[in-house]
């Protein structure tokens, strides 16, 4: 008796984006084996195209109810739609950013399909409703990230970051699995939907073990989300990894991990509420405080963005803590807050990393002093960076402000004002270091020092210094562009980067000024079933 049931399942509608990205990944991998020579950046372009196709598929599935696959190991529902779309958007932006690597800092071409496979894992984390599938997705994303961080083997910091990330990630996975094993042992099922009916029974019957399972799962995900006190790897890894990969870790993998956390905690423990989610509130508060204060003394911009992303993860965790103290009919509001903040966070963080990448290449430095005089050299980049940084800090008219405002409003509504106050106070602290960047951006170049720096950079790269050199048009080099940048011309920015930064600026401002473009589609979604 042939079992044809397996063939007649809604594979395409539930995991269409995942299939598209996986196929794109294998195609790019094979093409990479075949074409070994020349400039292989077209592979990244092809990958971006694959991600776009997947995005179309994900949009087609938006809001089409819910559908389970193979006894609900994978689900199409509102959560998976929202998180899939966001993951694919950030994957597209990150791939655009990798397109700009060239010359001496070129990444190995293998990174393109590693990113795609990582995206497959992230999509699995967003769509799966089974502990096994969720965990396999998490590992797929993690293993791809470990390799991506260490991919610049000549750089000792890159390899150090990779090793650190591998070890911390492995510990996180082990703790997560330990927590899951307790929950599985109590309930006898790994299916999140079945577990959701048993959450209350588990908590009343076996309180100690349930709390331990909850905490271990939260801590395991905390390693991946770099929540304090499990965040120490973050600055080192972000600093060591290529900038595009740092932005991949900061946005895509965090979004996927938040999606998975939502599935784990809210689905499994939805009726037990109360004391469990209080723990999430404590971790959120510590994360916001430590993340922001640790960022204060940072001079290295990538490390600062690392600590900043720790703090942002703290803000995003606040709504998770509110599930305990709210009624079921308030939950869609919390889901909206989480989704909105993650959308805003994705645009502003990738934008900030993109500009950081341009500045890093021009000045060969990631110290914040490299920003000095940016406004003189390129008003457009300076304004774009201001938008991103103000949004990260939470200035009105930007997406970051509204995201924080919604979360703050939630804390007020759901009687957890202390979390709202911590959020507000730490945001004020964050203004200090973000404004520090802006001061440097709009500060004029000290005249004597500039020439000196230009000469040094050019000499190091072995290129002649021409005072009247035209805009760098070709691969002629980093030196040429740096020389232009230093002597008051424009930074060499490829059209792709302009498009990327423009997209991020539009995303940040549009969400900040007309939030309805995202809130309306979110509002029409049916979160429960």
């Amino acid at each position, binding site marked *: 008796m042939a079992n044809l049931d397996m063939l007649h399942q809604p594979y395409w509608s539930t995991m269409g984006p995942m299939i598209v990205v996986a196929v794109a990944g294998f195609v790019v991998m094979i093409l990479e084996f075949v074409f070994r020579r020349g400039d292989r950046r077209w592979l990244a372009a092809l990958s971006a195209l694959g991600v776009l196709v997947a995005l179309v598929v994900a949009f087609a599935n938006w809001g089409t109810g819910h559908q389970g696959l193979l006894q609900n*190991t994978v689900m199409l529902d509102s959560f998976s739609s929202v998180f899939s779309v966001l993951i694919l958007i950030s994957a597209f932006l990150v791939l655009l950013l990798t397109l700009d690597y060239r010359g001496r800092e070129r990444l190995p071409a293998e990174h393109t399909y590693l990113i795609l496979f990582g995206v497959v894992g992230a999509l699995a984390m967003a769509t799966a409703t089974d502990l096994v599938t969720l965990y396999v997705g998490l590992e797929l994303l993690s*293993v791809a990230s470990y390799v991506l961080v260490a*991919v610049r083997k*000549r750089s000792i910091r890159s390899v150090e970051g990779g090793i650190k990330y591998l070890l911390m990630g492995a510990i996180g996975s082990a703790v997560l699995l330990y927590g899951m094993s307790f929950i599985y042992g109590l309930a006898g099922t790994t299916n999140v939907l079945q577990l959701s009916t048993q959450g209350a029974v588990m908590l009343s019957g076996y309180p100690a073990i349930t709390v*331990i399972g909850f905490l271990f799962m939260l801590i395991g995900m905390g390693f991946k989300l770099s929540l304090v006190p499990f965040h120490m790897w973050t600055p080192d890894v972000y600093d060591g990894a290529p900038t595009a990969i740092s932005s991949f870790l900061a946005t895509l993998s965090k979004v996927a991990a938040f999606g998975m956390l939502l599935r784990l905690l809210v689905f499994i423990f939805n009726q037990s509420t109360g004391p469990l989610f209080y723990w999430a509130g404590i971790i959120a508060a510590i994360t916001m405080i430590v993340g922001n204060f640790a960022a204060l003394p940072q001079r290295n911009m990538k490390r600062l963005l690392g600590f900043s992303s720790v703090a942002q993860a703290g803000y995003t965790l606040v709504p998770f803590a509110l599930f305990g103290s709210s009624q079921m009919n308030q939950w869609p509001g919390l889901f909206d807050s989480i989704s909105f903040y993650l959308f805003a966070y994705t645009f502003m963080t990738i934008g900030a990393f993109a500009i950081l990448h341009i500045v890093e290449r021009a000045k060969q430095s990631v110290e914040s002093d490299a920003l000095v005089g940016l406004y003189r050299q390129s008003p457009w980049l300076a304004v774009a960076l201001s938008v991103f940084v103000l949004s990260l800090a939470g200035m009105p008219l930007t997406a970051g402000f509204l995201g924080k405002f919604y979360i703050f409003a939630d804390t007020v509504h759901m009687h957890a004002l202390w979390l709202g106050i911590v959020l507000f106070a730490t945001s004020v602290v964050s203004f200090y270091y973000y404004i520090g960047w802006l001061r440097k951006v709009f500060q004029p170049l000290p005249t004597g020092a500039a020439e000196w720096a230009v000469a040094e950079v050019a000499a190091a790269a072995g290129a002649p210094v021409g005072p009247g050199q035209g805009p760098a048009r070709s691969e002629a080099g980093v030196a040429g562009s740096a020389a232009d940048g230093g002597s008051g011309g424009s930074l060499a920015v490829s059209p792709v980067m302009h498009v990327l930064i423009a997209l991020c600026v539009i995303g940040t401002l549009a969400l900040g000024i007309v939030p309805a473009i995202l809130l309306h589609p979110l509002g029409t979604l049916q979160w429960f079933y």
Partner: protein
Amino acid sequence: MSISWPLVIFYVIALLTLCCAVLMLSFRKVIYMALTIGGVFVGCAAVYFLLGADFVGVAQILIYAGAITILIMFAIMLTNHEAAEPPLSWNLKNVASAVGCVLLAVVLLLAVRSTNWPGGGATTDINGGNTNPIVIGLMLFKQYTIPFELVSVLLIVALVGAVILAQDRKEDE
């Protein structure tokens, strides 16, 4: 009073496994550590057999005790087989970690001991009359097909990643 032999065997196995684990932590030479971790893996496999999970036990021996231990040995022999850790010193960090570990173990032990675990009697058959491997196979290729396929992608990523990181690349300018 009759002696419950499985219980006696369990205590013997548990003792041996714990000994191996403690030895592994106290050895300073990497190659001895690799040997003792093999002992821990075999001990775990024996516990699985005692629990009636034959398939997991065999898989544990094949994969962990066999493949992984041997792989670690090869890695050590091919790289730096004289490597030894500096002797343990009781500085603040080590003391704090030890206290933390003991506390965690106490909390876990108390929680596990105080819980009246769910479970049927010895006659409960969750396999529906089939043997373990058959049920595992059915689950793997029916309900868990998608994670199974994702694991194959995971293996590709791990393989490619290992090659990328290990190959001696001439940085193409």
